[in-house]
């Protein structure tokens, strides 16, 4: 064996020394972090009542609440987050927004330039949480510099979310221009907060979106239940992609409105059972006597789920029409 005991012993000693140094460093770091956490806790304890009084009262901001150092800002951050996550009072959210734009923007801009990815991400989260619109341009400019190195999937998504929140006028352009792929879930997160006119504009360019984006767009329309989307959704009923047709049917069933029943009749003979099932769901919006002839056909369907849903729709609210027919 070419390796010697002395050599290995030296390696072990060096590694042990490194471990010793790292241990000392870790303990010092832990003590420092514990100290910082206790200072932040103390700030919250001493000032949370003052913040409550400021948020709920009509008085102007007391001088004592303006932060003097980073630890106080971190304390304020905790207080603000607890309000944002638990309340939706416009007045309080407005005060948080004003304060953050005035006193916290410089701190978060500093974090945006931090070398650590996680700290930069936290800064982007806070810009969104506290609606620090004064920082958005600087954030987007800064992000151009990140692109020169390597922009991660998470950063890319968060930047799109910032566009959706603060720059809806260029959001569609950004969404279509950026090549990075996101999951259906992520597209849903992005689109759920977008205003209906912007969604309708995006719908006109749906084919430029990847499959995940197209599916989410239609799902979000169903969740919104806005009749403004009806024409677009009905326009998809002959789309070549089955998933688009099915999701559009589901969204229409959720909006609970149709322009003309004839547009849907061909689905009664669809080779896809899910499409026939969606028609059963859609028939709920018709009066019992109008829907019965269709349900009668679907009761003979080859798929048990379609038959089951059709039967339960008749059973739930169909006795009268059954008698009439």
């Amino acid at each position, binding site marked *: *064996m070419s390796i010697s005991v002395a050599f*290995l012993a030296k390696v072990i000693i060096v*590694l042990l020394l490194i471990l010793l140094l790292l241990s000392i460093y870790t303990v010092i770091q832990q003590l420092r972090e514990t100290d910082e956490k206790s200072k932040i806790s103390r700030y919250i304890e001493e000032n949370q009542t003052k913040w409550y009084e400021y948020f709920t009262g009509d008085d102007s901001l007391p001088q004592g609440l303006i932060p003097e150092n980073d630890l106080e800002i971190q304390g304020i951050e905790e207080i603000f987050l607890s309000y944002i*996550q638990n309340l939706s009072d416009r007045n309080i959210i407005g005060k948080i927004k004003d304060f953050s734009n005035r006193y916290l923007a410089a701190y978060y801009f500093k974090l945006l330039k931090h070398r650590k990815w996680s700290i930069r991400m936290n800064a982007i989260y806070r810009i969104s949480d506290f609606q620090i619109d004064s920082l958005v341009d600087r954030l987007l400019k800064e992000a151009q510099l990140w692109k020169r190195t390597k922009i991660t999937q998470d950063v890319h998504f968060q930047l799109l979310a910032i566009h959706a929140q603060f720059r809806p006028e260029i959001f569609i352009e950004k969404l279509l221009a950026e090549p990075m792929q996101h*999951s259906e879930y992520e597209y849903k*997160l992005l689109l759920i907060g977008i205003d209906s006119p912007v969604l309708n504009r995006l719908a006109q360019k749906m084919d430029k979106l990847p499959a995940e984006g197209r599916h989410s767009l239609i799902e979000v329309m169903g969740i919104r239940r806005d009749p403004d989307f009806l024409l677009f959704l009905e326009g998809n009923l002959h789309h070549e992609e089955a998933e688009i047709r099915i999701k559009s049917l589901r969204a229409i069933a959720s909006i609970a409105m149709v322009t003309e029943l004839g547009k849907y009749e061909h689905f009664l003979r669809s080779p896809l059972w899910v499409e026939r099932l969606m028609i059963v769901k859609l028939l709920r919006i018709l009066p019992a006597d109008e829907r019965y002839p269709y349900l009668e056909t679907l009761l003979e369907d080859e798929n048990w789920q379609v038959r089951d849903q059709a039967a339960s729709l008749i059973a739930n609210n169909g006795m009268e029409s059954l008698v009439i027919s």
Partner: protein
Amino acid sequence: MSTIIDRIMFFFAVFIFIYTCLAILTYTFMLVSAFVNLRREYHLDKRELDEKYIDDFYAKPISIIVPAYNEASGIVDSVRSLLSLRYPQTELIVVNDGSTDQTHEILIKQFQMEKINRGINQQINTQVVKAIYRSEIHHNLYLIDKENGGKADALNAGINLSRFPYFCSIDGDSVLDEKSLLRVMKPIISSDEKVIAAGGNIRIANGTSVHLGSVDYPIDLSNNVLVVMQRIEYVRAFIMGRVALSRFNLMLIISGAFSVFSKKWVIKVGGYSVGMIGEDMELVVKLQRYVKEEKLDKRIEFVSDPICYTEVPEKLSDLRKQRRRWHQGLVDTLWKHKKMIFNPKYGKIGLISLPYFLLIECFGPVIELGGYFYLIIAYFFGQVYVEFALIFVLLFILYGSIFSAASIILESWTMNTYTKPKDFLKLMLMSLSETFWYRPLTLFWRCEGFISSLRKNSDWGSMTRQGFKREGEAE
């Protein structure tokens, strides 16, 4: 004669040396990979993600299945912790697998459970279900009382009763952190269900107080040296091992103590295999096998921040039983799926993951223990062999103690573990002692497991539960 002995001794020396060097290289790669992955997210505020995932619009409902066999001392805390989880829609199914203690009675009394008539979709065959109960105070809490059939059978019975598309299996003696379910579901939701199973991180909480179903912080390090050594082992296995394997979609184990599965895929592979000891590992291997055979784009992931607290053995006899059982489970699973090993048809799983488990995890104890015997024999054979033996001692220190100590540092740097500086130093010192007493012991027990596997022993392998210290609990 002496030449033959010399050659045999030399052969074993070279063999053990090469093997240990390869294992050290593998662990080094895993340590570096885990460091890069975890350190990146250290400062990230994960509350942001929790808030996004909490809306039931996005979240997928989960059936939580708790198999219980003689878990009377810990089951109430476990159920309470599960009832207090932050997750929009869950149902909790406790499966009493023919316990001979008071598990059944305690649950009925504590949660005011009443017998109900609810149909079971028998998608997987199980032992006879005697009765189904539902809690009068928590309407999403169910109890299945069934005849004893083993842990796998109990989990299958829970799957049959479950209504939701995902199920989470949790051991009866475990307590979950309130955000655990949200965080373990994150990769499943955000990947549009490409992730079909995810496992969380397991932490040791012997002696920890549980207050109304939640673990009290900070968690003190146990005074029991066996518990301390297991804490080090868990950190090494979860932080160093699984993070790296998960990163490259090489997962073959997600802990049976806390994992989430997509029910559809589990039913497709026939559920948990009854009669096998390592049913949790075997299920993951079966899923990976199915994914590769059907050429599906699916993943199985380990998520490091959802935390599940569990009790570990405090006595040598219990620890020995556990380690024998675990190793037997590993050997049985590898044997059952031997067709996949070194088979390019199974991609990275067949060419990297399974060979790693076979050579490092399965045969490792036999070879390592052989190394320890070599040290003893070398002592009697004189100068040359003593030098070999010294090299082995140093390699074993590197392989055992140094990596364990490095894992403890890695954990402190990357996770909010609430470890006090005093406890951290204690863990560091104890990890350095690992090579000299704890590792040989566990190696010996794992070798026993190897032998048991050949003899096909199987049981639930019960251990003496201390139960968490309970506060605020109505008697």
